[in-house]
């Protein structure tokens, strides 16, 4: 896609719009925030439905327990907080009160990856997928662009059970057309190819597509797969594509240990153990810097992804 024609969406605004629409459709949808209700992905909901917005302050353990309690009363709570606080601070509430009970709680992890990297490593979460993926009953969405964020919100509401949605702060280039239909649990091939399978999610889908363009210029025809549902993982698309290409690389703005790379490897090692490269953050806490600086520093720019994959292909 040429930059000139590109449309960029703010994931938080898209999600906020979807939440209001969900609130209109279903009076049981409520919104829970932890001192993050303004300017976040539920920003419009509290204005439109003030009686269905519950602010619980900087107290995420309580907020997650409250979300579970509301869900026992047939409410559909969407609970939002900065990623470290909603994924880690209240992890046991997520595990015991939400996942073990299979309650209808939708967890919005705001500012995933390097979204707010200038705030430092406390706020730069690169482990949420690793941790949340281990929880039974939890569906995990990691959308890549505006249309996918929008539909993921509706899909989350329709699922009868807990859903964790990773929401990025950086504006996302629109990759899907209006007629796009998001299907939970299904990956999608964004570019067909035969030489290597590139699998990514969230912010890294756009960079991977750009890297694939560069690869094509170097004579490598890569297949690009968007795995926006990390759990349950679409093992069919991984196995079908890898059977065709014989090589796989994953690209994620996340720790490769337990992240998307780990998830894909778990599928491949059982059924089709092809050579694999995991591109992402290799088990460290991030340095401080602006988003683009960190993307470059950790090798996640399209150019760096291209170089990594060329190295990988030259090795195997």
């Amino acid at each position, binding site marked *: 896609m040429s930059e000139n024609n590109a449309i960029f969406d703010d994931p938080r605004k898209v999600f906020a719009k979807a939440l209001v629409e969900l609130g209109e459709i279903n009076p049981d949808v*409520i919104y829970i925030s932890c001192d993050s209700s303004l300017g976040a992905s539920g920003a419009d909901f509290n204005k439109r439905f003030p*009686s*269905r917005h*519950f602010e*619980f*302050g900087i*107290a995420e*353990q*309580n*907020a*997650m*327990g*409250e*979300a*579970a*309690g*509301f869900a*026992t*009363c047939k*409410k559909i709570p969407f609970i939002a907080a900065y990623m470290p606080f909603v994924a880690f601070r209240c992890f*046991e*509430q997520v595990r*015991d*009160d939400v996942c*073990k*009970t299979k309650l209808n709680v939708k967890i919005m992890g705001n500012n995933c990856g390097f979204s707010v990297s200038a705030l430092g490593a406390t706020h730069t979460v690169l482990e949420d997928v690793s941790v949340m993926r281990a929880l039974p009953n939890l569906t995990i969405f990691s959308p890549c662009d505006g249309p996918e964020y929008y539909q993921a919100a509706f899909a989350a509401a329709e699922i009868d059970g807990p859903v964790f949605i990773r929401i990025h702060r950086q504006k996302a280039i629109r990759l899907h057309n209006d007629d796009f239909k998001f299907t939970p649990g299904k990956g999608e091939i964004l570019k067909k190819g035969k030489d290597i399978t590139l699998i990514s999610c969230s912010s890294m889908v756009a960079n991977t597509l750009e890297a694939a363009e560069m690869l094509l210029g170097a004579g490598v025809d890569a297949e690009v797969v968007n795995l926006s549902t990390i759990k349950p993982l679409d093992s069919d698309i991984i196995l079908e594509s890898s059977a065709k290409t014989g090589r796989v690389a994953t690209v994620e703005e996340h720790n490769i240990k337990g992240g998307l790379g780990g998830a894909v490897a778990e599928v491949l090692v059982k059924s089709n153990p092809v050579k694999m490269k995991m591109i992402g953050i290799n088990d460290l806490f991030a340095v401080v810097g602006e988003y683009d600086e960190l993307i470059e520093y950790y090798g996640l720019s399209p150019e760096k992804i291209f170089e990594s994959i060329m190295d990988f292909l030259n090795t195997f």
Partner: protein
Amino acid sequence: MSRLSADDLKMLLEKSYMCRENILKMMRNAEGHIGGAFSSLDMITVLYNKILRHDPKNPKWPQRDRFILSAGHKCLALYAVLADQGYFDEEILWTYGQFMTKVAMHPEEKLLAGIEFPTGSLGHGLPVAHAIALAARLDNMDYRVFAMLGDGECAEGSVWEAAMSAGHYKTDNLVAIIDKNGLQVNGSTYDVMSSAPLQDKFKAFGWSTAVIDGHDFSQVYECLESVPFEKGKPSCIVANTTKCKGLDFAEGKFQYHHWHCEPDKIDEAIDIVNLAKSKELENVGK
């Protein structure tokens, strides 16, 4: 103020001791948290027999009052009372300790009618209870939510997050009952981690509070009958209790927080509990 009759007192006493006997029978199969079960049992007996609006034949009745046992390890008491109330067949009690029993060492709502929410990890019940109370407000319903906590449990930060939240939202259909038996796994709560003064702390968080003797049926009943103590405030009852109440050799000893009784000693323990019952029955109406 509504008061208990002598017949009510006798009925409650007999039921609570019958439940103690049943708990000991369950413990023929396996160890259990007898200390907290026996300290909370009298209050749970009053709740289900005299306070809660509930229907054992329709456990999901939307208008029911809810009881959340935040200190989930006290569940032997809840199981015995629920069985007596007819939520499930008493035979289920005797499966305690067996593979895939429905009466596990911590309560599971998917296994057993009458369990509102699964608990076990401490500090989880009050946040859940508060949301259920807020949901009543959203749905224009008048049910009340009673959460029972342990005093040791009050060391969990999430208890105070929820306490702050209920004070903030002025949730007066929420009642927290603290079973203050003064003991926890490693000893006295004053030595392990003092949560005192509990009443003042809840008051400071915007609650209306009362202190009672958690084994005095009349006090328990009259206190629970009078909630909310203040309109626009959640109610907290700090109930002074005796760990392992009714089993004299174990009363007030932290070593009986969790007890593995030799199966051949159970009958002896039952005799001791029945002796305690007889003594208390003699005093009814005096």
